[in-house]
Structures are given as structure tokens and as C-alpha cells.
């Protein structure tokens, strides 16, 4: 069958998101009345609308032809980049600017499928030095250069 997979998937995504938000609104937020709208009034209307639109997108996908190719998902790149941001968020306060950036940037450099050790090292060091000079010394952001995690070394 000629199903447009992208449209089918996005339609289902909107239906699911609509059900999630609608469910939360219905179960935790009072609906109120048109006169005194509760915190759940607007969200419930919107999420219902979204479920409807999602359903239309999915149904139309059944006969709109196969559509463009989905293409590859660069899983390794995607996950490593997301991991880099998580590592930054989790450790920047404790590690401080220099160690935090070394770690974050190093992980990010690995995301490219054409990474080499040389490139990775050069990029990591260059970016860390650049950011530390700009943000720690020039702009004086309140992120310590070396974080409290290394206090023991002192």
C-alpha cells in the first residue's frame, strides 16, 4: 500500500502528544467554565484540536503516496551530541569551565563519523581554550574555571 510513512508517523506523534497533554489537563487541572476558565480549559481545547489534526494527518497519509525517503538517522551522532549536552548540564557546576568543556567538547567531537584522534584533540583543546579565555576571563561568567570538585587538590 502506498502509505506516506512520514505523514503517518507525524500524525501519530501529534495524536499521542495531544492525548498526553489532554490526559494531564483532564486529570490534574480544573476545567472551570467559560466565565471563569480554569487552568485546564485552554489546554484541553488545544489538545483535543491537536488529536483531531493528528488524526487527519494520519488518515490522509494513507492515500497521499509514499512520499520522500526518510533518510538515515545518524544514531551515533545524535546520541553523542545529546550526551554532550547532558554531561555539560550535569557536571559544569562541579567541574568548572575547563574540565567541563574538555569533557563536553571531546564527546561532541566523536559525533562525526569521520572523526580522527588528531582532529578530536585539536578541536577539544582549541574550543576549551577559546571558551575559557572569552567567557571566564573576558566576560567573567560566574562559572569557576576549575570547579569545587577539585578543591581537594588545593
Amino acid at each position, binding site marked *: 500500500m502506498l502509505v506516506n510513512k512520514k505523514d503517518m508517523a507525524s500524525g501519530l506523534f501529534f495524536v499521542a502528544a495531544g492525548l498526553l497533554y489532554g490526559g494531564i489537563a483532564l486529570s490534574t487541572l480544573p476545567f472551570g467554565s467559560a466565565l471563569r476558565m480554569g487552568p485546564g480549559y485552554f489546554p484541553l481545547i488545544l489538545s483535543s484540536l*491537536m488529536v483531531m489534526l493528528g488524526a487527519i494527518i494520519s488518515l490522509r497519509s494513507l492515500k497521499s503516496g509514499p512520499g520522500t525517503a526518510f533518510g538515515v538517522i545518524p544514531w551515533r551522532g545524535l546520541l553523542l551530541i545529546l550526551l*554532550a549536552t547532558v554531561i555539560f548540564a550535569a557536571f559544569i557546576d562541579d567541574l568548572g569551565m575547563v574540565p567541563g568543556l574538555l569533557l563536553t*567538547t571531546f564527546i561532541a567531537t566523536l559525533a562525526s563519523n*569521520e572523526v580522527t584522534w588528531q*582532529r578530536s584533540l585539536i*578541536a577539544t583543546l582549541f*574550543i576549551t581554550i577559546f*571558551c575559557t579565555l572569552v567567557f571566564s576571563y573576558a566576560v567573567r561568567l560566574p562559572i569557576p574555571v576549575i570547579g569545587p570538585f577539585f578543591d581537594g587538590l588545593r
Partner: protein
Amino acid sequence: MELLSNLFLGFGVAFQPINLLYCFLGVLLGTVVGVLPGLGPLATIAMLLPLTFGLDPTQSLIMLAGIYYGSQYGGSTTAILVNLPGESASAVTTIDGYQMARKGRAGPALAAAALGSFFAGTVATILVAVIAKPLTAIALSFGPAEYFSLMVVGLISSIALASGSLVKALAMICLGLLVGLTGTDIYTGAPRFTFGYFELLDGIDFVALAVGIYGIGEIVRNLEGSESSRAVIAKVGSLWPSKDDLRRMLAPAVRGTAIGSILGVLPGGGALLSSFVAYNVEKKASRNSAEFGHGAIEGVTAPEAANNAGAQTSFVPMLALGIPSNVVMALMIGAMIMQGIVPGPNVVVNNPDLFWGLIASMWIGNAMLVILNLPLIGLWVSLLRVPYWIMFPAIIAFCCIGVYSVSNSAFAVYTVTVAGAIGYLLIKLDCEPAPFVLGFILGPMLEEHLRRAMLISGGDVSIFVTRPISAVLLLVALILLIIVSRPTIAKRRDEVFVDEEG
């Protein structure tokens, strides 16, 4: 004559050599930091703001104006070059600006942004000097009913943002509206969609959301192919706009300026809408409307002009009423208060030199930006030649630092992660981010004003049609709706749709 003496007073202050120097410093710093991909105007200004606190009031404000323009332009630059908008307004600039860059026309796009802004800034400065008083009166006549109707106009015109499937665009607007509602309900204090996170009580940070959707999404998409097959940028052509480009920029700049000037006066979100509305109007009005979404120079000029004009005219109600038009302006107003300019109706009377000096220095900041940046366009474009294996980890690092520094919170960086993952998925499914962004901005305002209007009127829906300005706005919305859903346009939409699917 009063106008002339006012402007004369202002320029007298702003043209002192020491003040010009601070203005230049501000523009330079703002541009240099703002041009780093991932650091939008908000993060840039938040970082640089403390530098101005030690100066005397006039110098501080003039340097601030420089930083403001520099960072705004820096933000437009990253929007155009690497598809990374730093604030809501440049989310529109990415649509055509990035397409231009991909076609090797980054130079003309950057020039269009700078020249469009400068034109708008000049006109708006004169406008402010001529009709400062009536502008404040307009702002005051807008109550909750009027704001609600204005948001409806914005919402309906936003449908034109979509260049692909209409239904998907509508669904994305809905999703944006819902996500925008995250946080504490203003009317009951109930936390909504915070999933138990204390940090989400103030809502989702726009900067983090934009960085996630655009920044992470774009990088991962670029990682799909191998380095050599990455179809990023065609050969960089001429750095300057051609005669034809300049001719095509003129009308959009004028229309954008008009729209931005009017909407900028409304402190409750008018300026936020201006770039979106200007883009939509241009898309309908332009002879080249087919080119929109594929690198139309009009699609860069109009929103940039509107944004800048709006920023300039929003100064009047902002100084008179103390209501900033957006987050960046909120930072600016805070800095002013620290310098002893307490916003209020008498600020023009009590501090004429500061007020007019500020207006003049905003214009000078804008002019200096053009002078500084037109010669540097070549340099910015050459950023594109930085090898991608250095560029993308650098963007990640800048994004993390920038998002962190907006509120010094690691939580916002996690927002980037989540928004990046979901954003990438949606982009893969051909769902465009621009309607989502507009919904995200409009959602909370739409609801806030609707519920306030109902509370004030005691539940009487007729408030929206009995108040003249609100009624006119709703009429405009209705006409827009008819235009958008007219069969011919719907058909053309379908053709576009089929085209892209085929």
C-alpha cells in the same frame, strides 16, 4: 521645532567623542560575542550587561545601545549562516536567510539584514521624536480584549508561515501553544505540565528551546551525510547585494518598518509579533511569493526591518510605562533603572537629556553597526569555511554556555537536550519549526488576555466586539481567515504539497 530641538539635544549628547567610543565598544563586543553560534542576543546582553554598570548613566546607556544592536545583528548573522536563531524574531529570518546562505548568497542576506534594520531604525527614530506622546496613548488604550484580538490576528496570519502541509503547520501551532503553557497558571497558581520539575514553574526557556530545535537539529542533520557530501553551502558568490537585490529590498523594508513601528508600540507582545506578521504580509504582497522559503531576499529584509522598527518604537511606552516588549528589553530597562532612569510618565520631562540621548544613541548604535559590519561581512561569511569538525563541537559548547548563562541554570541545558531530540524527530517528519515557535510565544499571551478579559467583563463575551479596537482587529482576523482558506490558495497549497511529496 520642538522635534528638532529634542533630536538636537539627543545628538549633542550622543556625538561627544567619549560617548561615540563607548558606543563603538558596545557594538564591537555585542557583535563579536553575538556572532558566536549559540549565543543569542539574550545571552549576549546578559553576559555583557554588567560591564556597563560601572559607567556614568549616559555612557552606560549608550554602550548598552551599542551592545543591543551588536548582539541583535550577531544573532541575525548566526540565523542566516548556521540556521540558529538566538531570539524569537530571528526564527523568521532563518526561513529565507539560511536558504540564501545555502545558495551561496550569505553576503547579500547579511547586507539585507543590516541595511533593512538601519532603514527601519532611522524611520522609527524620527517617528518616535515626532509622535512620542500619542504613541503612549495608543499603548494605554489596549486592554485585555484588544490584546486577545491582536493575538488572534497573529495566530491566523501565522498559517502563512507554513511552506509545506497546512494541517501539519496547524498541528505544530497547537503543539507550540500547549508547550508554551508550561509553568505556573497566572490565575490560580496551579503548576501546569511541569512534570514535577520546580525549574519549569516559570515556563520553558525560549532560548533553550530554540537552541535545541534549531541548533541540535541542524547539526545532527548535517551529520547524516559524510563530510564531503554535506550539501551545506554552495560556492559563496558575491558578498554584496546586486542592484536587483537592492531594488527588491526597498518595498519590504518600507512595509516591514511600517508594521514594526505600529506593533512595537504595544507593550504586551506587539513587538514579538512584528517580525512574524511582516514576513507573512510580505509573502502575500510580494511579486516573488513563490520564492519565499527558498531564499527570497524580501523574506530577510522585511522581518529584520520590522523587528528593528518595533524595538525602536517600543522604547516610548517602555520608558513611559515601564513595560518591556520582550526579554531583551526587560534586561535593558533593568539597566536603566540601575542608572537612575526610573520608567514613568515623567521620564521625558525629568531626564530629557538621557531620554533623547538614548533615542539618539540607539540610532547611532544602529549606524555604527552598519559601518562596522558591512566591511566585515566577508569575515563573517568566512566563518562558513571553518572546517565542520571544529565548527559543530564549538556550536555545542557555545550553545551550552549561552543557555546556561541566561539564568545560570544547568536545568536549561537539559531543556536543550529534550528539545533537540524532539525537534530533530519533527524536522525529520517534515514538520517546520517556525509555526511551533510562534505558537509557543503566542500561547501564554493568548490565554492570559482571554481569561483576563472574561474576568474583567464578568464573563460577557460581547466585550470583544463592543470595544471598537478589538472589533476591528477581529474583523481583520476574519478577512485573513477568508483569504487563507480561499479555494485558489488552498489549491495552490495542495500543489506545493504534492510537489514536495513527489
